[in-house]
């Protein structure tokens, strides 16, 4: 009784078989329905996220957020949806019409496709392919193509600038992201998502905190949100790659960005926070889903928090940070993890000692990094700018008439 979702799917399969359909057809139908359910779950999550994000943004900026439509503003996303569905979609003159209209669809699809392999609970997973991590990396790259298509086909200089920046940024940050993903793969000895979750005793955030940090930073750059929102920097290039989009065309980019942030949270939860695992989750998938959503929300909240706290970086800073700091650091983390793991395996230590040594190795790398950074750039003495105390209001000098 602890597994209602698989129970329903089995009942459904048997029902179709009972109707006398061919077995292959039944498999295709039930898989298609499963895919539709997971994808719809993604879209529903976005509707909730738009409200959550605006509420968080409101609170962090010392205001209330949406509170007019419905109780606590809960109906706000539905009002937005109705509005955006009834907006005219314009296509600018001189645009490449095919690429221009396909780009928003592709942007959304690239994010939704990741959901195919995310394990929600022990038995509730779209599909547990044995190259899950590679699949995520491959599918995630579609987003870059969508942004490029949108920027190039718009026939707009600002959009094209945004697309150039997207290539430089999203493509560059993919390198340390893939290296950071190699660490959990190495620790779990598998690329299957469910295997990685099952291997997490203790959670990989303890075994590989640096890889988790690198993954968090790089995936934020992949999403293209502040402080990495150069591809749509509104104070520099209007709206970047989606300047020319209106109505639902823009809406799809917006929704895909929201869903991407949540998906990044889900990936962080899966790779580093133990996924669905928790007390009692093995037997009760519902509990696993609950744990998974809580952990995902933690990752999501951290990303939103950083987004609302930090200003935008410059493009030369952005690329230097990636190529001169994150990439070497990620490579060193990978080397150290491999060597420490193998030597501990050859010595043969207990699991808790293994975890402790891994954590110590990571802390050591972090400490060494800070030392090297300090050696390269000597700490600038904090400048104290002395200001002349200025009276707020100066009394007018008495004039003698």
């Amino acid at each position, binding site marked *: 009784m602890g597994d209602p979702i698989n129970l329903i799917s089995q009942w459904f399969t048997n029902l179709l078989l009972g109707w006398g359909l061919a077995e292959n057809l039944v498999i295709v139908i039930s898989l298609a329905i499963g895919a539709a359910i997971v994808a719809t779950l993604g879209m529903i999550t976005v509707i909730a996220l738009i409200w959550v994000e605006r509420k968080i943004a409101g609170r962090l900026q010392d205001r209330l957020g949406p509170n007019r439509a419905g109780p606590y503003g809960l109906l706000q996303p539905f009002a937005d949806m109705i509005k955006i569905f009834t907006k005219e979609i314009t296509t600018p003159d001189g645009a490449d019409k095919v690429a221009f209209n396909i780009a928003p669809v592709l942007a959304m699809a690239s994010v939704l496709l990741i959901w195919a392999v995310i394990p929600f609970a022990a038995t509730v997973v779209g599909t547990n392919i044995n190259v899950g991590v590679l699949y995520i990396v491959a599918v995630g790259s579609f987003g870059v193509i969508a942004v490029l298509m949108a920027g190039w086909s718009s026939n*707009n200089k600002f959009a094209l600038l945004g697309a150039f920046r997207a290539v430089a940024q999203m493509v560059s940050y993919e390198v340390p992201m893939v290296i950071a993903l190699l660490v959990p793969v190495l620790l779990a000895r598998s690329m299957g998502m469910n295997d990685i979750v099952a291997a997490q005793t203790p959670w990989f955030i303890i075994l590989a905190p640096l890889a988790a940090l690198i993954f968090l930073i790089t995936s934020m750059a992949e999403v293209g949100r502040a402080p990495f929102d150069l591809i749509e920097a509104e104070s520099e290039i209007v709206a970047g790659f989606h300047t020319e989009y209106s109505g639902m065309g823009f809406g799809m980019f917006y929704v895909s960005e929201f869903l991407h942030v949540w998906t990044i949270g889900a990936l962080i939860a899966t790779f580093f926070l133990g996924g669905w695992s928790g007390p009692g989750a093995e037997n009760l998938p519902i509990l696993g889903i609950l744990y998974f959503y809580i952990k995902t929300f933690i990752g999501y909240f951290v990303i939103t928090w950083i987004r609302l706290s930090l200003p935008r970086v410059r493009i030369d800073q952005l690329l230097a940070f990636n190529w001169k700091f994150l990439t070497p650091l990620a490579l060193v983390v990978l080397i150290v993890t491999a060597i420490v793991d193998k030597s501990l395996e050859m010595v043969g230590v207990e699991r808790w000692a293994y975890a402790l040594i891994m954590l110590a190795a990571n802390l050591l790398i972090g400490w060494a990094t800070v030392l090297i950074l300090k050696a390269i750039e000597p700490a600038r003495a904090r400048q104290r700018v002395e200001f002349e105390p200025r009276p707020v209001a100066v009394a007018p000098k008495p004039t003698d008439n």
Partner: protein
Amino acid sequence: MLDNWLYIGLFIIVALFIPAVAVFLPRLIAPRKPNAIKQETYECGIETVGDAWVQFKVQYYIFALVFLVFDIELVFLFPWAVAFDKLPLFAVMEGVLFITILLVGLLYVWRKGALEWA
């Protein structure tokens, strides 16, 4: 195993179908009144000068090239990480050497000045 990939194939169809419907639906219910001013390229109200597809900074191209090298080499590391249990120390050291060569390559690119923006 084949079922898994069938699911991925069906999921691709579904994932393309849902946003396609969302983009198509406004064509039925939203107004459609194009005019010359509305269709103009938006550049903050200033009249567009010249072609949009202009020359761009060569650095974008160089960064894309550097990425290509790294991404391809990283794909080779995935099988190495998956088979880590079965690898002897020699193979592990070979993998480490491979990553070190990557690091040296990064240093080379760095010294060449390909990572400088200005």
